[in-house]
Structures are given as C-alpha cells and as structure tokens.
C-alpha cells in the first residue's frame, strides 16, 4: 500500500462575520492551500462558514492536562474578580 504521509491540519471556521474562528476538526492535506480546499469541502458543505484558518497540528502548542491544577486553580478563589462579589445597596443604580 502506498503511504499517504500528508500532514494533519487543524481547521478553524468563522461562521459569519463578527464571530471569531472556531475549531471544527482536522484533516490531512499535502500543504496548507490544499488543506483550505479540503476544509471547504469537508466542513462547509451547508454554508457553515465565511472564512477558514488552517494550521499544521504539530505547530500548535498546548497546555498539559497534568498541569491544569497549577495553571487554573489560582483563579478559582479570586471571586472578587467577578462583579457579583460586591454589595450594591437597594436603590443604587447604574453600577
């Protein structure tokens, strides 16, 4: 069997102008322009997008789930970062 060995790309689609691109999946292609063509056929067959980003999967740097506690736990007890933390007396408006 001949091997394909095309790299894997991650695909991001902007559903309509005004929205950010969102990860929708991945695909294989020989290069980035073919990846965009394939993404058009694979992820926008029903008008799901107006813009496509592709990036080779190997170029994405990701956080390690094993470190998620160290990364994200410090935010959990800082409830004063949310507006609901503060007292607003009855009758005071526009705060």
């Amino acid at each position, binding site marked *: *069997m001949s091997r394909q060995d095309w790299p894997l790309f991650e695909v991001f689609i902007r559903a309509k102008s005004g929205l950010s691109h969102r990860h929708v999946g991945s695909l294989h292609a020989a290069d980035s322009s073919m990846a965009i063509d394939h993404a058009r056929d694979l992820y926008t067959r029903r008008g799901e997008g107006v813009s496509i980003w592709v990036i080779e999967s190997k170029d994405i740097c990701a956080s390690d*789930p094993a470190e998620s506690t160290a990364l994200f736990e410090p935010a959990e007890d800082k409830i004063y970062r949310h507006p609901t933390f503060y007292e607003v007396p009855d009758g005071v408006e526009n705060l």
Partner: protein
Amino acid sequence: MYTQGLDQKADGGATAADDAARLEQFQRRVDAEEKIEPKDWMPEAYRKTLVRQISQHAHSEIVGMLPEGNWITRAPTLRRKAILLAKVQDEAGHGLYLYSAAETLGVSRDDLVDQLLTGKAKYSSIFNYPTLTWADVGAIGWLVDGAAIMNQIPLCRCSYGPYARAMVRVCKEESFHQRQGYEIMLMLCRGSAEQKRMAQDALNRWWWPALMMFGPGDAESKHSAQSMAWKIKRFSNDELRQKFVDVTVPQADHLGIKMPDPDLKWNEEEEHYEFGEIDWQEFFEVLAGNGPCNKERLAARQEAHSGGAWVREAAAAYAEKQSRRAAA
C-alpha cells in the same frame, strides 16, 4: 452514517500497569459526565475500545458510499441525482470526521486505511448487500440511515469528546438522508402497481439486515457492560433495535407496504411491537466475509486507493517543491 455493534472481543479491564488510583479518578470523571479529551489520561483498554469502534464506524461510512454510489449515474431525475450525490458526499465527510477523531487517540490514518484495505478491519455488515433497484436507494435512506440515526444519537453524549463532537456534526447532517430515502419510497408507493411492488421488494430485502445493524442481542453481547460503564454506549443493542422497530412500522403503514415478518404484531400491554427471530447465522456469515458483496466492496476500495496513488504522490511532490522554493 452507520455505526454497528459488531461486538468483537472487548479489551478486558485495565492492565496491571494502569494505576488503580488513576483508574478510579477516571471513572469518577466519566460518572460525573465530564468529557475525556485526547491528552487526558485514560485506561489503555478504553483507548483501544474507542480506536476500534471509531475506526470501524469510519470504515462503514467509506464503504457505505459504494451501494448508493452504484445508482448515481442511473438516478431517475436530475433532482434525485443531485440529492444522491450530496448524500454520498456527506458519507465521505462522515468517514473523514471519524478518522480524525480516531487519530486523536494516537493511531495514524494510513494504518487505519491499511487495516480496511487488507481486510483486517470490520465495517457494518449492511453494506455487503447489493442495491438491485432504484427502490433500494430509498430503502437504504429510510431504514439504514434510520437505524444509524437511532444508534448515533446516543453517541453524541459519548464520554470521549472528539467522538461525541464528530457525532453531533454527523447527526445534524443525517436527518436529510433518512427523509430523502423515505420520500423515494413514498413516490414509488404512490406510483404504479409495479413501482409499489418495487418498494415492497426493497423493504423485503433490507428490513432484516437493517435490524442486524444494532448488533447481537443483549444476551450474546457480553462486552457491552464495560462500554456502558465508560459511557461510550448508552443503550443496549436490543433497546435500540426495539425503538427502531417501534418508530419504523407506522412509517411502513403509511406507505402501505409490509415488513417481511409474519410474527410482527403490536403488544398493547407493553406498547411495543413484537417481532420475529433474527437470522443471526446470516449476520455472522456476512461479518465473516461471506455476504453477497464483501469481496466486491473490498475490491472497489482497493482499486480506488491504488488508482488514486499517483494523485497523492503528485500532491506530495508538488508540496515539497513549493516548500523548497519558499525556503530558497
């Protein structure tokens, strides 16, 4: 889209290497309906079970293009041809979403494709039946896609994130498949006596294989308990099959055609249809490679793959040349 409980040997429990504490934590996450993502720790057996299920599912989509593709050039009208083309293209897309989901578990696309082409991998038994008339295209959309939807909707809540997300996309696209099939049946049943006979004949041939798509009965299905515990599977094969029968029989009544099952009858008390014995011998024969079209399907895939080799090679050579030029 076509998944099937093929119920091959599951990969037992955890291996000794799997740390008991991590295993417990994993199960707690699953029990709490948290999704498991590719880089998260998971038991080796969970990974293997998913790779097998998702890749079989992907292979089924790809092979599933063949029986219907057989009718694209002979579709009765331009409208039907455009619809059938779109449907078959969707099946290709579904296969690709699923291969990508399987790859997040650390297997390569090329290995998965090789497994299909060398006959090592299984795919849904239903695609080893021939499409003899145009009515078969209707019956496939109505029954085969109908059964697939029944199987796939619970998979949208599967514990493995990439599989669940692929299934959401697939299910969204799938309902048109079932409706266009039913519409074909409807047109035939409203047509001449000969057309209606054609619809009945297609139902006769596809009904039992469609019921087999849910996999062996629960008593035979020894390995689904683990898949249930891992929340890969949400309902048993028999539960899903019963649900399918219950929703499909009234649809046949509306068409004015009959399921080829003399034992089919409504059970007032249980509010379910009772149906006859499935010929499991036939199911296992087809699965073992002895169905009417197994050899033809595999040969068609092999030919498509080897015939397309030069395109893949040319694209790779072109990409390499472009990147060399960009670097220079």
